[in-house]
């Protein structure tokens, strides 16, 4: 079974802190994604990566950056955390689509609270 793990289930940080959220997948997937989930807004894509050292902005990249130095690991960085970044953060991975789209496998999520 594909396993996507996230470094923390719950995280509390203070405004202005630099925050790192880590995601690791064990199935050699090319694609990795970071979303945030907020009530009534669903999942919104922050960044995604389809290869090592490659990244593309999603729908809400402002205030975030990402790093993918190894295929299995995709990090989300909040350069200076703000209260409006309090949210549930979900990581996902999938095989490279090629000609057929493949489903995404999600981690358990990190609930981040910024005080």
């Amino acid at each position, binding site marked *: 079974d594909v396993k*996507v793990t996230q470094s923390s289930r719950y995280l509390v940080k203070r405004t202005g802190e630099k925050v790192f959220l880590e995601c690791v997948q064990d199935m050699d997937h090319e*694609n990795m*994604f970071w*979303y945030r989930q907020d009530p*009534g*807004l*669903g*999942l*919104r*894509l922050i960044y*995604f990566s*389809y290869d090592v050292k490659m990244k*593309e902005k*999603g*729908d809400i990249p402002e205030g975030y950056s990402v790093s993918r130095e190894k295929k299995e690991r995709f990090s989300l960085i909040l350069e200076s955390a703000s209260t409006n970044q309090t949210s549930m953060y*979900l990581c*996902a991975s999938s095989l490279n*689509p090629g000609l*057929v*789209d493949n*489903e*995404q*496998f*999600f*981690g*358990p*999520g990190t609930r981040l609270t910024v005080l």
Partner: protein
Amino acid sequence: AQSVAQPEDQVNVAEGNPLTVKCTYSVSGNPYLFWYVQYPNRGLQFLLKYITGDNLVKGSYGFEAEFNKSQTSFHLKKPSALVSDSALYFCAVRDRRGRRALTFGSGTRLQVQP
């Protein structure tokens, strides 16, 4: 641009009755369409997808969805609801000619009453 709409925040249905969770989409080309489910305190799980071919797609746990190109819809259905189906359901779309990432809807909470 690609977008998806789930017009109902919540759907209530009695156990044993059929259920429908609605989804409409907008893409400039042809779509890939997905349904995901999030059970309480668990991560999102894939349910089913439409890529091409038969408009009626069958997925996990007895769910199915019908792709309707003229109505740009991809409604999720199940003939007989179970209390254990109570969860948050997300529809997602990707334009085949667009970016390599999905756009998700806002989610519909399904409540099945015993």
